[in-house]
């Protein structure tokens, strides 16, 4: 595929991620922090987010699997997840954390498990979308083009 086409696909894809609420303005902040001296900043931060999230989701699964659930611990994990998803602009993941914290406070294990399921789904979705985005970027660069700047 030629560069122009790739760039147009990239712009369309990126726009859809914002329009569908997967990403919010904070993601644009990350993009603005990327420059010639830090050309991989976005990929680096997002990779940290993936690692961090997967660890937290595992911890949450284990914590909710205990006979006596430590809800303080569960809440602490969700707080972390809310923080990092918010910092990278993963809006839908962040939004899932809010009801999660409420049902944690109510010590409602069933509801927590449902929230966890939802967060896992949203996380996998956004992970997939971001990986696709990064692949598109790589294709553009490989074809000799520049990655379009979005405002």
């Amino acid at each position, binding site marked *: 595929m030629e560069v122009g086409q790739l760039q147009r696909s990239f712009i369309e894809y990126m726009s859809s991620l914002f329009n569908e609420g997967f990403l919010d303005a904070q993601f644009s902040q*990350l993009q603005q922090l990327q420059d010639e001296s830090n050309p991989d900043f976005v990929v680096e931060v997002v990779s940290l987010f993936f690692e961090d999230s997967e660890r937290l989701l595992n911890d949450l699964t284990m914590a909710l699997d205990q006979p006596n659930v430590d809800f303080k611990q569960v809440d602490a994990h969700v*707080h972390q997840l809310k923080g990092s998803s918010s910092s990278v602009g993963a809006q839908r993941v962040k939004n899932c954390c809010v009801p999660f914290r409420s049902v944690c406070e109510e010590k409602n294990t069933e509801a927590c498990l449902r929230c966890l399921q939802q967060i896992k789904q949203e996380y996998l979705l956004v992970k997939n979308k971001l990986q696709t985005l990064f692949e598109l970027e790589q294709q553009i660069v490989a074809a000799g083009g520049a990655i379009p700047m979005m405002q």
Partner: protein
Amino acid sequence: MDFYASSSTVSSEEPHVLAVDDNLVDRKLVERLLKKSSCKVTTAENGLRALEYLGLGADQEHSTNGNGSKVNMIITDYCMPGMTGYELLKKIKESSILKDVPVVIMSSENIPTRIDECLEEGAQMFMLKPLKHSDVKRLRCQLMQCQG
């Protein structure tokens, strides 16, 4: 040649900021934001590590063994396990060496009582997360005025 005693002047140098946050993603973000605003950055993952870096650790002599005199500002998350940002703020303000170093508290939660508590304890500023470039720019300007 005259040698000037090294103090915390930042006029022609990059200010040195200690950033404290237990969240890996947030540490990376705050570091980049500060570097983009021409600051030298050291990060710490919790209050204890921060105090050790500053020379205020439990086992350290309250002296020049730490880097406290080199740090021009401390920016810390509020919610951290073990020692909160508020507790860290208090320890810094209790130190004769460090009490004048500006401390900024960050939090993802906008809780007025929390904000008041921190400002009353001497925090320079309270910032809401996620941090944006404009927030750090504003902070940097304030810092320059402080040192001027």
